[in-house]
């Protein structure tokens, strides 16, 4: 038993901290820690800074421009970035399409597209979910009909995160209607400036815009944009779901958020006494802290297994469920701590002299509502429970 990082991992961690202290733009970190919206420009700046250091896609093999990080280095990277208040790397190119191309793409596709992900030429978004097919991907209806050396795509995708900033989208589409629902699905790459595409923003519960609907009307896509074989998109979809799940528990987010709540509870007073002195509130904090400290170890245990080449079965689903529950519970605590100061709809007018919530906390309630999504997307926690139950009953 050894719960500590190896000397090499600690050295990497120290490098990272230095790097973040020097290169992470303060204005961006301030937005992230205050849970305010990070702009397209912010994200592109941060990607470029990371890319200059070779760390934008550290877990990619060196042959493709990465560092070949294993699960533990990847975890260290994500944890340190969280703690420093760095924005999340937009995952659609780096963490999703990249690995798919490396595994299923042609050498031409790899040579063409991977560098464009790294240098920011392409901003990819994801066309998976449809209005009638959320957790049940196999029932998707968007059709791609072959017409010569093109597909003609008709249908609708939804929940396309940050699609408003993207120039390209990777989609699961139906290329065969008969047979099992899983069998007729293909994975295609589409330029968003193709005629017939309309992207409509979806306003979210707290008032922000981060997801979109994408409508396809007779959109012509060259057959060369197919990744993998026709009708084998399901394999790619499963590969993607099983891939890149090191940060699935979101421990870094939770650690950073819990520290914020702790300092909030010391800063906020009730009748002159710091909120932390309220036993009921402190009890909520202590309970979640114990869960989170346990979660850190649960996460490391699975990472260690992955790093030793062990096959992860049910574990990522466990991490997803418990990790999101803990994050949401911390969001809930921050909102609670604020009391009435959580009530105002966030607006610039309320900053400065008039600020009601302590600095950096005006968006805590909005963030609580927004983060209800994390137990829904990426395979809802109910789907994860189904997966775990299947494994459990098969033992």
């Amino acid at each position, binding site marked *: 038993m050894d719960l500590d990082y190896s000397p090499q991992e600690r050295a990497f961690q120290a490098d990272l901290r230095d790097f973040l202290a020097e290169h992470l733009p303060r204005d961006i970190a301030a937005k992230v820690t205050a849970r305010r919206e990070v702009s397209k420009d912010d994200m592109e700046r941060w990607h470029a800074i990371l890319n200059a250091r070779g760390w934008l896609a550290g877990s990619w093999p060196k042959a493709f421009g990465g560092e070949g990080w294993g699960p533990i280095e990847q975890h260290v990277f994500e944890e340190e970035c969280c703690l420093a208040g760095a924005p999340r790397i937009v995952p659609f190119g780096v963490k999703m399409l990249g690995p798919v191309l490396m595994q299923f793409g042609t050498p031409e596709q790899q040579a063409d597209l991977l560098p464009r992900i790294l240098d920011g030429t392409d901003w990819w978004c994801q066309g998976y979910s449809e209005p009638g097919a959320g957790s049940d991907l196999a029932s998707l209806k968007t059709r791609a009909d072959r017409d010569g050396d093109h597909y003609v795509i008709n249908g609708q995708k939804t929940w396309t995160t940050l699609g408003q900033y993207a120039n390209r989208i990777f989609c699961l589409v139906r290329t065969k209607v008969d047979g099992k629902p899983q069998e007729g699905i293909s994975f295609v790459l589409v330029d968003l400036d193709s005629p017939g595409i309309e992207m409509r923003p979806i306003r979210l519960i707290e008032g922000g815009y981060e997801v979109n609907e994408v409508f396809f009307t007779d959109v012509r896509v060259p057959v060369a944009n197919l990744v993998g074989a026709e009708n084998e998109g399901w394999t790619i979809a499963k590969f993607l779901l099983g891939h890149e799940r090191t940060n699935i528990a979101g421990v870094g987010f939770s650690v950073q958020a819990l520290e914020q709540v702790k300092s909030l509870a010391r800063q906020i007073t009730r009748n002159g006494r710091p909120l932390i002195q309220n036993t009921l509130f402190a009890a909520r904090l202590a309970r979640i802290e114990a869960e989170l400290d346990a979660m850190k170890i649960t996460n490391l245990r699975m990472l260690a297994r992955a790093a030793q080449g062990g096959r992860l079965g049910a574990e990522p689903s466990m991490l997803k469920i418990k990790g999101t529950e803990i994050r949401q519970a911390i969001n809930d605590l921050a909102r609670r701590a604020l009391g009435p100061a959580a009530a105002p*709809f966030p607006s610039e007018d309320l900053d400065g002299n008039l600020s009601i919530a302590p600095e950096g906390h005006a968006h805590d309630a909005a963030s609580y509502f927004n983060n*209800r999504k994390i137990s829904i997307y990426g395979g809802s926690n109910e789907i994860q429970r189904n997966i775990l139950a299947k494994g459990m009953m098969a033992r």
Partner: protein
Amino acid sequence: MNFEMSDDRRMLAETLRRYLSEQYGWDHRLRVAYQAPFHDPEKWAGMADLGLFHALVGEDRGGMGGSGFDIAVIFEEIGRALCPEPVLGAVMAARLLSATGTPLTALLSGETRYAVAIGELDAPYDLDGIACRADRTGDGWRLTGRKSVVYGGGVADRLLVAARANGQIALFDLAAAEADLHPYAMIDGGPAAEVLLEDTPATPILPAAQAALSDALDWGALALSAEALGAMEATSAALIDYLGTRKQFGQPIGTFQALQHRAVDLTIDIEQARSIVILAASAMGTPVQAKRVAQAKHLVGRVARKLAEEAIQMHGGIAMTWEYPVSHYAKRLVMIDHQLGDSDHHLGRLIETLQTA
């Protein structure tokens, strides 16, 4: 024993429900709730015409209602429609003005909108920590301090302010125009404001106002509990409807047992919430008023948050959107716990009662 509403009350509830559904439809509600002034003066007047404000007040004070059950019935409809009108201020003001003997004519007619300014950032839910002070000057009294998140503060004609005068908490009346008001919308819609007072002239209307203010806070908490109940009924109806229609894996998601059992538990919790609101309504004006109200606000706050979170989760995406009404119900259900004491605050009151009994 009889748990039926009286005919009068049922008629009022039905009238109000019809009015809100016809005159305060969903698109209108969304626009009003988030666009300054965050309420609709015309609909306020319309609700007054229905006799809404008379129902808040007892016959001895010129009204036609004023019991706990009257308040509960009205706020249940307000909650069901997610109506952002600041009726809460009228409920609390009616209690305070009655305690001082001030005539209620302008409140009853809906002509004057009152906001009650008690909470401060350091003392959001109770009276002990109030820092706002009242100073006697040559020509009267002046108030200095800040009242935070005053519901309806930005659209009020008059403010009733709790402030420290001569070592006790007193109640003051002032024209809203006299204060430095900074109105804003709440995250769940509807009007609130920061009220900045600096040597602001005000009329003292109750020198020892502790008891009256506590009473007004109780009535406000009852109203909010009933409002949450109405919003819960609407949310639960939408959820059950969704479970029956939305399909995944080829069948309605309402056929999945795990979701069924969770929905059942929510339904039972809502029945319990209804019961505790009934119990609190029946206790208004009796010696157990404070305890019953604390129980109601505590239990309702707990159930409302759970329902909000579960309703979003079980909808699985759609209720995360602004366009789908459940998202707004969910916000109201969570944020109502931030008004007049959250579930832990009221649990704290109950604990004190147990410990001193």
